[in-house]
């Protein structure tokens, strides 16, 4: 009973995280019943996103111009740089209102079993920024997971002597990504950050 275009939509929807074939079907039928302009608006948003979004040339978060909105903001504190694994970690840190520096997105964490070595992350770019931008404190906000902790250790060894390295205080849920931490806990962990030896 499904037409080819409907089948294609369901197939695409079921690739989304947390969406199984059944909920993909439900979503597809919901979209079918929605007014035409709503589905076209959704399609337009998707097209615009994939056409316009690109990595920020400085921090590698999402940008639509050369620089992302945060890197464009001249009023932030140039001496502070916060290293995260993915752009998704930036939003929860911003929501705490406890941080006024800039960010650097590594694009993941070290994980040899998945074939991710230092050369696969934006670590060279990070070293260059630390040298060039007058950074005095580097906050290592990789996730409190095995791979995030190992990445923090690697960075602290690599950049020791060049810059003061700090790590978020403990108290964050161990084994989970930063994006799942609530603002209050994350804000406290930021304020209580400790110097990495």
């Amino acid at each position, binding site marked *: 009973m499904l037409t080819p275009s409907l089948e294609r939509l369901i197939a695409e929807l079921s690739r989304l995280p947390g969406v199984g074939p059944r909920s993909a079907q439900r979503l597809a039928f919901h979209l079918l019943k929605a007014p035409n302009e709503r589905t076209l608006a959704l399609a337009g948003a998707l097209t615009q996103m994939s056409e316009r979004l690109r990595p920020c040339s400085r921090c590698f978060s999402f940008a639509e111009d050369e620089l992302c909105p945060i890197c464009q903001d001249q009023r932030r504190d140039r001496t502070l740089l916060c290293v995260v694994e993915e752009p998704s970690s930036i939003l929860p840190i911003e929501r705490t209102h406890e941080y006024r520096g800039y960010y650097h997105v590594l694009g993941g964490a*070290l994980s040899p*079993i998945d074939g991710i*070595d230092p050369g696969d992350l934006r670590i060279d770019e990070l070293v260059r920024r630390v040298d060039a931008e007058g950074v005095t404190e580097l906050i290592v906000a990789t996730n409190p997971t*095995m791979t995030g*902790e*190992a990445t923090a*250790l*690697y960075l602290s*060894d690599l950049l020791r002597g060049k810059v003061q390295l700090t790590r978020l205080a403990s108290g964050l849920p161990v084994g989970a990504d930063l994006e799942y931490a609530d603002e209050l806990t994350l804000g406290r962990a930021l304020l209580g950050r400790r110097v990495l030896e």
Partner: protein
Amino acid sequence: MTDGHPWRVHDLEITDVRCWNHLSIEIPNGLVVLCGPNGAGKTSIIEALVIATLGVSPRTSQLGELIRASASVMRVTGTFSESRAHDMTQHREIGYASGVGRRLSIDGAPVRQLAQWRRPSSVLVFMPEELRAVKGPPAARRRGLDRLLEAMVPGFSEHLSGYQEATTQRNALLRRARSTGIDPASAFAWETRMATHGAVVVQSRRDAITELRPRFAFWLEALGGGSGGVLELESSPSNLCAVDNDALVASFVEQFARLRPRDLAAGLTTTGPHRDDIWIGIGDRDLRRLGSQGEQRTAALALLLAHRDLLRAAGSGPILLLDDVLSELDPGRRQALLAALTGDEQVILSSADPDVSFADLPAETTIFQVRDGVCHV
């Protein structure tokens, strides 16, 4: 922690396990003797109790081997309680179907992870045909000790799995560095994580051995195994510095870094807590390799009782499952063993002796006759 939380099994139902087509029994407290000829299925009842608590068999690593010859699915269910005072009962179920795999549930609710289902402190098992705790590979001895620590030391299993995860990462890095020539310098990050978790693992194992040692020596002698019983943790690497946790971490970091060229050539981590062993001996004689069958049996039993003592002291009372334990003990040692079992725990032992010295057994002993596919009081 001082209040005991003794484990009890109240009933057990077995479907298509080894020789059993179907068996349903109620198991009372105190001493329970399964009595019957060899091959009647006594050991399989004990095995089923282990499976119902730990999810693994002490006799095989393949649950599929347990499925009765003409069946395709086996199932073990049982009602257990953790504490007499609070009467916390749970209905546990494990099933295994060839080609489908294992299914676990507690009180009817499916449990996906074995770690969430298994109860490492709830049973201790002795099987004369499986003396792996004494003469098996190092991994078998380590596993027995780690199971004890999992039950006794909060956070131990997280540190153990953290150590294993970091080691797996380091091994993957070394293997790729060996084949592609990439710089293995980032290995130190994994080595630091291995050291942090490994130090806790090793210190916990050392502490447990210190606690077990006098108890093992005591029971070995009481059961006629002779005096001078010794347990020692054989740490890997053997020259670990040990004064405190920080020194242990530093020592691990240094050793892993120093051995990196050798490990790089091997493509794996050649030393560390994953290579620890436990020396079991009398004086300086190694019972693991040089002990007679009888000595190894006695040592396994003494080790089991030492574990029992420690779990009890920590407030947990395991069910003791002792397969064919009386047959090779002389009357004096039988008495010593039975005297050791008069605590408030539940003990299930099997015997093929048709006239098991009933005179020796405490008056409140329950005797099941196991023969011809039935089991009755």
